[in-house]
């Protein structure tokens, strides 16, 4: 049995999205910026896609800007707000310690350019409060950027409450909703969100396409210069096949959002419940304010890359926040922000489900993970120490 449980990394594309893409690669290949009638039908499709995508998050068509994906949308939102703030001598940005690197590394860049960044601590469940944001606000704050839901531990942030505070204080609020779009209800108006990033391949759309929502009246600037596409905010011929694929995928995801969430929460909770029976195991992230398909646990005494590769032998694709899998020497910044010791964080496992996941697949995971954990613990000198009651840091 082959089980794909790494949907937070990317999802398989839906048949519907694929068919839409092929249609716009095949018969309707024209450039939406062309003046001839051929191009005009492409332009009409583009306008329609913009409207459909906007509707899915409570935005108007004119507030949707297509980008190459979530990272570009995050970069554009943050850099725009930073530059706008600088014009008024406001160079302070508030974010959290568990953001995606697309946000954190953009903030690092801005720090080098003289901006001050406050990264809010999360609690042991991986959450911040809106009150923390309020307390961190300063006269010179030009942006608050807080992710909608975390990609590793699945925690859902109090976006509407943060939005209300930012609106009251008239401070631009951006949220990286890459993991949330298509999985959680989003209403940018009701939640007072000024900018929001999404990426199609996280909800069964194609890779290489995303969107930035920017509230009418909020400021964004182009970070890719060239033609006048996207109202001059993002140059480059529109990737119409990908845009149409994204529109189809997002509409489908939103249409069955509650049904999918119910199914996924059941499978998620079954996995957490059954895998928690393995001794010396920690569940990472809030159990309730959590993405429907996210499971993240640490198994003490073992290391994540070994765990992943052994699960791979059993046909299971998962992910880990261990240093070895992150390509750096430190385990995931998200797990460390929860206060986990390095040695524990090295032993993390993320399983991320999608509506394509079946009960039989969940059962296969439940059958295999304990075997793999036991096998690795049997050969682990750290596990031996844990059994002796020694503290491992």
């Amino acid at each position, binding site marked *: 049995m082959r089980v794909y449980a790494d949907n937070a990394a990317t999802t398989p594309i839906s048949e519907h999205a694929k068919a839409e893409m092929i249609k716009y690669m095949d018969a309707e290949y024209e450039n939406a910026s062309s003046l001839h009638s051929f191009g005009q039908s492409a332009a009409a499709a583009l306008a329609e896609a913009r409207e459909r995508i906007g509707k899915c998050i409570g935005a108007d068509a004119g507030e949707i800007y297509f980008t190459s994906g979530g990272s570009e949308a995050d970069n554009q939102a943050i850099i725009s707000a930073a530059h706008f703030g600088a014009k008024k001598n406001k160079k302070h940005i508030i974010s959290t310690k568990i953001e995606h690197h697309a946000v954190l590394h953009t903030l690092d860049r801005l720090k080098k350019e003289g901006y001050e960044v406050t990264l809010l601590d999360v609690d042991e469940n991986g959450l911040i409060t809106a009150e923390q944001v309020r307390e961190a606000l300063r006269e010179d704050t030009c942006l608050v950027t807080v992710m909608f839901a975390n990609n590793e531990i699945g925690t859902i942030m109090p976006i509407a409450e943060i939005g209300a505070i930012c609106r009251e204080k008239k401070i631009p609020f951006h949220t990286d909703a890459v993991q949330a779009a298509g999985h959680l209800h989003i209403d940018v108006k009701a939640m007072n969100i000024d900018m929001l990033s999404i990426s199609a391949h996280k909800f069964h759309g194609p890779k290489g396409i995303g969107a930035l929502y920017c509230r009418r009246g909020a400021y964004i600037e182009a970070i890719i210069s060239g033609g006048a596409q996207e109202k001059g905010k993002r140059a480059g011929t529109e990737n119409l096949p990908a845009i149409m694929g994204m529109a189809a995928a997002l509409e489908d995801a939103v249409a069955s959002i509650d049904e999918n969430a119910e199914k996924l929460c059941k499978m998620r909770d079954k996995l957490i419940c059954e895998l928690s029976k393995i001794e010396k195991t920690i569940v990472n992230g809030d159990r309730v304010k959590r993405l429907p398909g996210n499971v993240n646990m640490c198994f003490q005494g073992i290391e994540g890359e070994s765990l992943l590769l052994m699960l791979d032998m059993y046909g299971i694709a998962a992910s880990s926040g261990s240093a070895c899998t992150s390509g750096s020497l430190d385990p995931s910044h998200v797990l460390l922000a929860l206060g986990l010791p*390095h040695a524990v964080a090295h032993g993390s496992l993320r399983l991320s489900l999608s509506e394509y996941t079946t009960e039989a697949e969940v059962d296969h995971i439940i059958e295999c993970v304990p075997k793999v954990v036991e096998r690795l613990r049997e*050969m682990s000198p750290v596990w031996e120490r844990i059994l002796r009651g020694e503290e491992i840091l």
Partner: protein
Amino acid sequence: MAYSAKVMDHFQNPRNVGKIEDASGVGEVGNAKCGDIMKIYLKIENDVIVDVKFNTFGCASAIATSSMATELIKGKPVSEALTLTNKAVVEALDGLPPVKIHCSVLAEEAVKAAIKDYYDRNGIEYDAELFGESGCSNCCHCD
């Protein structure tokens, strides 16, 4: 990052996993914070390594290099085991990704640490320079 077939074989079917209760020498290197710990047990008779076992906490290459290192020294005189280099371990595994070379360094050091323990226990004199500093030399956490 892809592992060679040999690395995957030694990871999936590690040789000499376990402990030796009446070991002649035991060596442990690395630390849990870095994500790698190797512990090697030697049974030595007449200056020959008649048995060797290991326990490792770490990634696939840490397990594979431990396994290969034990294979390379099993049945060998202690003096020969002392000449084991991390390079020899890497070559025997048909290479390691660059970021994983430190695992082979740990394997070499674990073998040396176990031999040093054997020498210390038996009052055998040795050149301290043979052993040097233990610990993963290219890891950010090691003081």
